[in-house]
């Protein structure tokens, strides 16, 4: 398949079952809501090393937040429901509660909930109080700028992690430009985040390593410098740079839509191929075939 003379490789992205939550952070102004959201989503690129994957979903206008202040919606993903509860308590406690003027609310309606504010309230050392409104309990924890309001329970739901696109270009500049355009298009999809720095990752990994203690190692098949030595290089000769975009979403449809928009936005001069990472279909619960995302793509030849 071709889009604007860029080859769309007939392969699939292998995605995984995860658990996701949506957190709404509000603050006195957008600057501080963003500060807390950035802090909460820092060091959250991959569950392999960070225990969770997180990102800012969107800015939320003041008119749409429970307390009428500007907010940021953050999505956070882990591999288990219990793990998600732990990460939420850690990150809301360390990154949101600490940030001036913020409050933190659940923004995901779900039958499954985990306790967050109900754990963080103990920071109040007995001075905490709560308000129950519409069956939602909000804890008020006294802090040095007034009070930190945090919802007792947060909704969690099964989610999808690890959707991805691999962008293969001739050089860094066109590949980076393609990745930036694709990431921008993907971010317009509700319910997804791109957990890596500004949405793009260059250190794609494969499972395992020649070292016993290392569970993931460099994806040598896509490293240009290893084309001559890798046993199964996937790179054509003209490719000198590969960048990956990883997508986590609250459901499969959101991840597919993000990949679809990324595929449409990336092609440009200097980009040779768009592929996707998988493990032979042996590990992930979801296979997202690129050809299924592009029913109107031109066939090669």
């Amino acid at each position, binding site marked *: 398949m071709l889009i604007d003379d860029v080859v769309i490789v007939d392969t699939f992205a292998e995605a995984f079952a995860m658990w996701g939550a949506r957190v709404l952070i509000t603050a006195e102004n957008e600057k501080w809501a963003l500060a807390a959201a950035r802090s909460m989503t820092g060091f959250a690129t991959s569950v392999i090393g960070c225990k969770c994957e997180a990102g800012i979903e969107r800015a939320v206008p003041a008119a749409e937040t429970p307390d009428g202040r500007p907010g940021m919606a953050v999505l956070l993903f882990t591999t288990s429901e219990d793990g998600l509860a732990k990460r939420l308590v850690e990150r809301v406690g360390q990154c949101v509660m600490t940030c001036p003027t913020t409050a933190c609310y659940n923004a995901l309606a779900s039958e499954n909930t985990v306790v967050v504010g109900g754990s963080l309230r103990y920071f109040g050392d007995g001075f905490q109080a709560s308000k129950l409104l519409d069956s939602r309990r*909000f804890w008020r924890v006294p802090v040095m700028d*007034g009070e930190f309001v945090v919802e007792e329970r947060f909704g969690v739901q099964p989610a999808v992690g690890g959707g991805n696109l691999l962008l293969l270009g001739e050089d860094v500049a066109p590949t980076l430009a393609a990745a930036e355009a694709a990431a921008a298009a993907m971010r317009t999809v509700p319910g997804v985040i791109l957990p890596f720095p500004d949405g793009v990752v260059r250190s794609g990994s494969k499972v395992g390593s020649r070292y016993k203690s290392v569970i993931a190692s460099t994806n040598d098949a896509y490293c240009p410098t290893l084309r001559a030595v890798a046993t199964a290089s996937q790179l054509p000769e003209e490719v000198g740079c590969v960048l990956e975009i990883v997508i986590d979403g609250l459901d499969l449809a959101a991840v597919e839509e993000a990949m679809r928009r990324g595929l449409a936005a990336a092609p440009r001069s200097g980009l040779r191929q768009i592929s996707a990472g998988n493990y032979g279909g042996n590990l992930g619960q979801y296979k997202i075939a690129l050809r299924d995302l592009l029913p109107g793509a031109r066939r090669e030849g």
Partner: protein
Amino acid sequence: MSLTLTLHTEPEVPLEAEALKPERFEGMTAAQIAAVAVLYGNQEAPLGDFFRVAGEPDGELCIRGDATRVKMIGAGMTRGRIVVEGNAGMHLGAAMSGGEIFVAGNAGDWVGAEMSGGSIVVKGNAGHLLGSAARGGRVGIRGGEIIVHGNAGNEIGSGMRRGLVAVAGDSGDFTGVNMLAGTVVVLGRLGWRTGAGMKRGSIVSCHPAELLPTFSYACTYRPVSLRLVFGHLRARGLPVAQEHFAARYHRWSGDGIESNRGEVLLLAA
């Protein structure tokens, strides 16, 4: 058409009509409903002596006419909806645990006394002891919410344990007396001795008030939680002014003769 009871004979003495709740009439015919016993003064009388019955029981009960002397409407109800198109008498929704009551006019004393769930909206004024404990009781409203668009009398939220009581107008003396927890919001003025004996909970007013000497000034700040409460009340039709959302409030802690863990929030000038 929902079940409608129209008052055709105004009682000269109070009519105790605890039966006036939707669940009591489920599956009954108009004749059976008219035969339901109520207490008129100190004697039993059939409901039909006072009300004309029309419509079918479907979970909603409409009461027409001036029911000022009809007591205990919706008392103990657990589900359904009551609409009182005129006024309602004392003990409206007392001890209710679910469902909704809407009163287009005024309501008497003891509205929602010791209720544990559900909601009551009074578009006019309410009497004394809104959401309170019964005399001799220690715990008032345990859950649910009461919203009054007019004024309310003395001792509202007395012994309140949980829930929300909101008054768009003024409240009388001893608002939140002996309060244990929960929230009382008075958009108008508070009477004397607000929060006397309160242990925990919040009393909010959008006007200055003179508090008892056993209350201590803490700070003046912008409570984020109050934005949530005001947003909730506005969504229920209470006219909360926009400037009150982000305003600064004086926080007073009290009552010092108790655990000193309650708060009174008064709008800063």
